[in-house]
């Protein structure tokens, strides 16, 4: 299994039946592939729909049903469409159980930076700042390093997306939970040791007496 699918598989275990969930573009979208059959999750797309079927074959001839990247998508029976004001009401108003977002950096305080690299890449924050500020749980799904350089740092060097502490970081090496006391190493990936994780992480990690292995198909 490749890195992205391993991360997506682990993140999917965090979703519960009936949850309203928003998946970011890219890696987070793959999470939908690993929701167990029979577990109903309501996926929101912030451009105005709840009940989207991510990664499905578009089942409509309408060019007015798209995902947040503007690509044709499909919906489940019982889906609902609404405008941007309502859409962000769900996001900020505490109605969204989980958002899964990519990350450029996360720091020891659990703060995420994922929307710009000054002077180089300035895509804009889109809905990310609202999602991180408003969702009940924020899960960051990202590779552990970028070209060998740690992305989990003592302090973010890039502009923050929110000062709020995210709930969980899932990488291809580890599951890390930001807490009041700091970053707790909760799990390691199959074939990865605690020392491997520490070596690839700049931030201080709190390691327990035993660290379980992620329950994923390697």
């Amino acid at each position, binding site marked *: 299994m490749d890195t992205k699918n391993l991360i997506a598989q682990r993140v999917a275990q965090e979703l519960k039946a009936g949850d309203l969930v928003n998946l970011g573009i890219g890696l987070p979208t793959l999470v939908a592939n690993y929701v167990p059959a029979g577990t109903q999750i309501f996926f929101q797309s912030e451009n105005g729909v709840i009940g989207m079927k991510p990664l499905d074959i578009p089942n409509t001839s*309408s060019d007015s049903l798209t995902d947040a990247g503007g690509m044709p998508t499909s919906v489940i029976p019982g889906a609902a469409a609404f405008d*941007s004001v309502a859409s962000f009401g769900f996001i900020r108003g505490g109605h969204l159980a989980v958002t899964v977002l990519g990350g450029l950096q996360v720091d020891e305080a659990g703060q995420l930076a994922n929307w710009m690299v000054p002077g180089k890449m*300035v895509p804009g*924050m889109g809905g990310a*700042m609202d999602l991180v*500020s408003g969702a009940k749980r924020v899960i960051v799904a990202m590779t552990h390093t970028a070209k060998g350089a740690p992305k989990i740092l003592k302090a973010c060097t890039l502009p923050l997306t929110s000062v709020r502490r995210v709930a969980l970081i899932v990488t291809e090496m580890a599951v890390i939970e930001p807490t009041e006391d700091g970053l707790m190493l909760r799990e390691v990936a199959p074939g990865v040791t605690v020392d491997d994780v520490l070596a690839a992480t700049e931030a201080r990690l709190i390691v327990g007496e035993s660290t379980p292995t992620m329950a994923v198909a390697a």
Partner: protein
Amino acid sequence: MCKVCSLSRAVDQIPNGASLLIGGFMGVGSPHRLIDELVKQGKRDLTVIINDTARPDFGVGKLVDAKAIRRLVTSHIGLNPETQRQMLAGEMEVDLVPQGTLAERIRAGGTGLGGVLTRTGVGTVVAEGKSTVDVDGETFLLERPLVADFSLIRAWRADHLGNLQYELTARNFNPAMAMAGATVIAEAGEIVPVGMIAPDQVETVSVVVDTLVSRED
């Protein structure tokens, strides 16, 4: 007074330097005929408020390509390299606003509110220069209302009075923007006789729509 007029007359009203609220999300639900006509008439120095700048040669990306925009207020330009190029080169002023905040600022502008209070952006670069308000011990940012000279709206269906209905994710910013423009110009996929859209189905009420673009020029 007849609301329905030709595409060219509808866009003739818009002077160079005007501010425009334009509906759409990655070009879906954007008024493509109105955008094409703005480019055709060579409008320039525009202030454009829109969720994103779509892609080059698509949707509002055509106004970016034509260098018709002097100032842009938007939440996302990541899928349009030309917008990023013009911004980094200093050719276009870009104000990046969180998407939910953008929606609420437009809603506030259209509904007579002095602004909105949000947690989004507190402690980040978005908060720079803005007032904060404490509500029950929690800090919120004061975000100011947004209005414009014109709103350019895309509807799925209109009646001849200007009542509008939208479709699926082509709805996005259109209903809020239809309330926030001094002059509102709408294009619709279909214009039906008055009465065919039942009162419960009207999403934007005709009284705020000033001009409806006819199907044919």
